[in-house]
């Protein structure tokens, strides 16, 4: 029982990371029909922004050595600017393109960011000691819980709540939901399309920055492709949650965290290595059996 609870906490922490990443991808998909693979690379950008730009193997913290509040603000701003740049340079000229074309374009952006980072920082993985104090374990009864996992979960819940309030209660949020549902109709009613989209990119940037900091604290290493697996799994979360539904993306993230952790824990050792294959086979299964996701939004079904 204790073992299961321990796994459950791991699942929640992993699910939080997936959910935060999926939220950023799901937000842009809802509004633009864009499956933004470059979102993972924005996470990489946020992580590399912590250190001094150099090709050395041991990373020296630059922004990462500031006070936590300053780090959060600076990293968020850097990633938001990067996200807005990808929109202005590539996605804005492709506003009328089809979803697969946008997906190809996001691969191009991803490729450009990865190789740009490679140019400045080198290809070798870097060890980095960032906020490692958060990795202490605290004991709750018989459970040992890494503090960082609690922080990750708390940050995810706070950001989700903030985003929900924003979408429900503010004029910009209501306009964003309207644009996500029917972009052209929103424009007919005077909603400024590019402002809404820019705002969505900015929010996805903040979410990516949060993942950068949480993920680096946990993993302690940097590679120029570190965002790729995160984007892939978040993308799975978005699909199983029902593309275009934000609540679905979050639920999908936690569900995926649960599935992955439990497969890892309870799959026979021989099959454990094929965990990812199972996860993505599940994606195909969901597409075939419940194409609108496990938690579909009412209106996006026919558009996927």
């Amino acid at each position: 029982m204790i073992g299961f609870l321990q796994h459950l906490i791991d699942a929640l922490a992993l699910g939080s990371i997936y959910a935060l990443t999926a939220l950023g991808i799901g937000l842009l998909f809802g509004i633009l029909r864009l499956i933004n693979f470059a979102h993972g690379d924005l996470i990489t950008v946020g992580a590399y922004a912590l250190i001094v730009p150099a090709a050395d193997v041991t990373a020296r913290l630059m922004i990462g050595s500031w006070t936590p509040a300053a780090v959060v603000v600076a990293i968020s701003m850097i990633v938001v600017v990067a996200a807005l740049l990808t929109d202005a340079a590539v996605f804005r000229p492709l506003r009328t393109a089809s979803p697969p074309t946008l997906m190809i374009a996001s691969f191009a952006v991803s490729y450009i960011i990865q190789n740009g980072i490679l140019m400045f920082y080198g290809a070798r993985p870097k060890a980095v000691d960032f906020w490692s104090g958060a990795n202490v374990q605290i004991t709750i009864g018989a459970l040992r819980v890494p503090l960082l996992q609690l922080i990750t979960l708390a940050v995810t819940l706070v950001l989700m709540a903030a985003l929900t309030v924003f979408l429900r209660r503010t004029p910009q949020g209501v306009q964003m939901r309207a644009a996500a549902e029917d972009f052209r109709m929103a424009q007919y009613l005077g909603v400024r399309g590019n402002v809404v989209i820019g705002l969505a990119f900015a929010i996805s940037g903040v979410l990516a920055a949060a993942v950068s900091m949480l993920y680096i604290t946990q993993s302690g290493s940097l590679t120029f492709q570190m965002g790729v697996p995160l984007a892939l799994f978040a993308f799975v979360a978005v699909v199983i949650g029902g593309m275009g539904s934000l609540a679905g993306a979050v639920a999908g993230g936690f569900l995926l965290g649960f599935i992955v952790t439990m497969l890892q824990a309870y799959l026979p050792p021989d099959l454990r290595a094929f965990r990812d294959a199972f996860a993505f086979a599940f994606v195909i299964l969901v597409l075939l059996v419940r194409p609108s996701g496990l938690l579909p939004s009412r209106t996006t079904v026919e558009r996927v």
Partner: protein
Amino acid sequence: MAALLEVENLSVRYGDLMALRSASLSVDEGEVVCIIGPNGAGKSTTLAAIAGGVRPVSGDIRLEGRSIVGRRPEHIARLRLSLVPEGRHIFGTLTVEENLQIGGYMLGDRAAARAGMERLLGHFPRLRERLRYPAARLSGGEQQMLAVARAVMTRPRLLLVDEPSLGLAPRIIDQIYEILLELRQREKLTLLINEQSSARILKFADRIYVLRGGAVQVEGRAADLRDGEAIHRAYFGFGTQDSAPAETAA
């Protein structure tokens, strides 16, 4: 004085398909003008092009004498021109109230928008009862009313309405036309309406355009077209007295 809206030699193309060929029409302040024509005649395309949703290949669209071709839909909405598109395009996951609010944000004056909503809901008691419902739960007729109300929330001078009667029961259609005409009085609206059939619209409209094959076939005062022969001829390409259809369009 220039007409409120002038459309001149407008042509629209989708890929290989010419949806609109050099169509011209005009609407004066305070008029109710109706475009009628069969499915695929180019009616929706005309309204979408005026509202900025479709870019024409040639021709001009002027609002109060100023060209609005190539402007984004959200800019055109700010020139107090609003479209109720075919199929209503309600934001189904938003509440009825939020749907209405969307139309008001553009005004930038929350108090005025709220007052506008209050006044408008006087015309739509059904919507007032359902303000907190997700709009997807409304019936077809209620959704059509919401679409009209939402468009009027932007305080337009010119309201374009694309097939308001589509898929609705005759009783509901009568209600909607009643409300449209009421709104025309109270809000000083000018109306440009698309319909497939002419029967009902001939009572309300001041002037009629008949569109077929992407081109204007007939235009005239509704009063002059009531016998129906000219409309029938334009609509089908042959008159009721002709023995054989003289279809020319390829």
